[in-house]
């Protein structure tokens, strides 16, 4: 019984050493690249963004003015150049705040929409209809964000005293940009928005009614939020 003991006790360490070599090799092969990968991709998405350009991508929103007309319940009215400009300013602020900034940052819209919506529409636009009017919850656009708009026609309505009382517009915005997911389709947003704007008495024009349809396609989209409020309807298909 004792004669068997030395070979057994001496053989076990030898076998362990021989088996340990491939195990260590496997671990090295497996763990080193993994550690390298973790080291390279650590941090947030901003840091991991492609480093091909040093300047931040810029998106220009240029909404061309289309046909400008007016009808009136009283004396004929016209929409002046200044009034057209102010309406376009409001629309530009909306596109930048509702589409460009959220897509660029991958974060919720932060613009002051109280400057372009009246109290009634602001309430519904930023709550029940938020998912329709704002491009939030979408993958962050990493490279160029292309925003194109068709010429915006303005149609004014004059009151019985011949004062321009409101303007209706039809805004068509097409925005697309690649995300950080290689090989995946870019985020693409097409929004058709009928806006009614009225002067606020301080020189600005604010949105007092809207009828908006949006189509979004791309990868990994968050669910579109819809709801209905008092005079607000929302729907998805």
């Amino acid at each position: 019984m004792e004669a068997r003991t030395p070979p057994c006790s001496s053989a076990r360490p030898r076998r362990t050493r021989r088996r340990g070599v491939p195990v260590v090799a496997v671990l090295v092969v497996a763990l080193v690249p993994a550690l390298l990968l973790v080291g390279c991709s650590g941090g947030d998405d901003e840091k991991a963004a492609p480093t091909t350009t040093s300047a931040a991508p810029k998106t220009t929103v240029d909404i061309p003015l289309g046909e400008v007309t007016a009808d009136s319940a009283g004396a004929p009215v016209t929409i002046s150049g200044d009034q057209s400009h102010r309406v376009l300013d409001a629309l530009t602020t909306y596109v930048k705040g509702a589409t460009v900034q959220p897509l660029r940052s991958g974060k919720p819209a932060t613009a002051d929409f109280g400057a372009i919506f009246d109290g009634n529409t602001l309430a519904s636009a930023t709550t029940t209809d938020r998912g329709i009017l704002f491009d939030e919850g979408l993958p962050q656009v990493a490279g160029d964000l292309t925003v194109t708009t068709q010429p915006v026609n303005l149609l004014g309505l004059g009151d019985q005293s011949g004062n321009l009382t409101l303007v209706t517009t039809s805004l068509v915005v097409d925005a697309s940009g690649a995300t950080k997911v290689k090989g995946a389709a870019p985020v693409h947003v097409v929004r058709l928005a009928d806006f009614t704007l009225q002067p606020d008495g301080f020189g600005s024009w604010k949105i007092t009614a809207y009828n908006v349809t949006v189509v979004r396609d791309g990868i990994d989209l968050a669910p579109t939020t819809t709801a209905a409020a008092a005079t607000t309807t929302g729907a998805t298909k």
Partner: protein
Amino acid sequence: MTAPTRAPRRRALTLLLVGPLLCGLLLAGGITTTWLLFGEPVPAQGAVWFQVTKLGSARNEGGPQQPFFALILGTGARSDNLAESPDDPGLADAVHVIGVNPALKSATIIDIPRDTEGPGGAKVNSYIVNNPGGNELRTEADAVSSIVGVPITWVLRANFPHFQQMVDEIGGIDVNIPQPMDDDFSGAHFPVGPAHLNGEQALQFSRDRHSFSNGDISRTSNQGLLIVSALQTIQAKHPSAGDTVRLLATLGRHTKLDGVGVNDLFHMGSLSLTFDPANVKNVVLPVGAGGGSNLVKTGDATGLLADFADDGVLQSH
């Protein structure tokens, strides 16, 4: 004796536990190495990982959020200048209170017969001409408000020529005529059934009371029907926002307003175009014989008006 059998078992057990772990690590390492050496895997050309399309829509017409009441008046004046209207001093022979509930997208039209007695015993159609130099629309609205028991905020009035022109400018009204009409006084000669009425015909349809045994009761009901029919006719054309602007400009050109601006009408008009006409009820105020030729509210009117007053919609009538 047991040692030789325990060792292989232990080795087998160790292999069983460590083997899968090592295989997993090897696989992960291989994938990671490949990723690092050759880059992120790219799907086949033209393919995408996930492609999701979402369509959504939302609208807010603006305007009132709470129920409100409007008064629609049609007068017999043949001209804006009453001196040029010797046949009629501008009595309101069409009196309709519309309760609008924006949240429910519903409305109720209460048709008030012109002989209904108002405050002080006068007929409801006369208050509009009994306040010379004052706000005749507000005077009329106050009288109607006391009859119906609701606050009236908006008043719209059209006379004969403006009513005709307005109907012509919107392209006419499709009406399903409920009773045969054959009346030389108004000029209404229409068989029962669908008809497309131009301005002149719509006025004839609205004025005729001689074709019916109950006279003005059917007439006021027909006037309410014409309002609902106008909504249906316009809705059927699927007007754009621009079309709505033109419609409201037309309405504004041919009506006198009190308590409401054209911009309010635009928002209200846009909202009403989203109403299902089935949710717009047309009801004649229940009336019976009063003193002289006056009509007075019957007991049935009490419950109906209470139902109407709370939210502009008739739930139980």
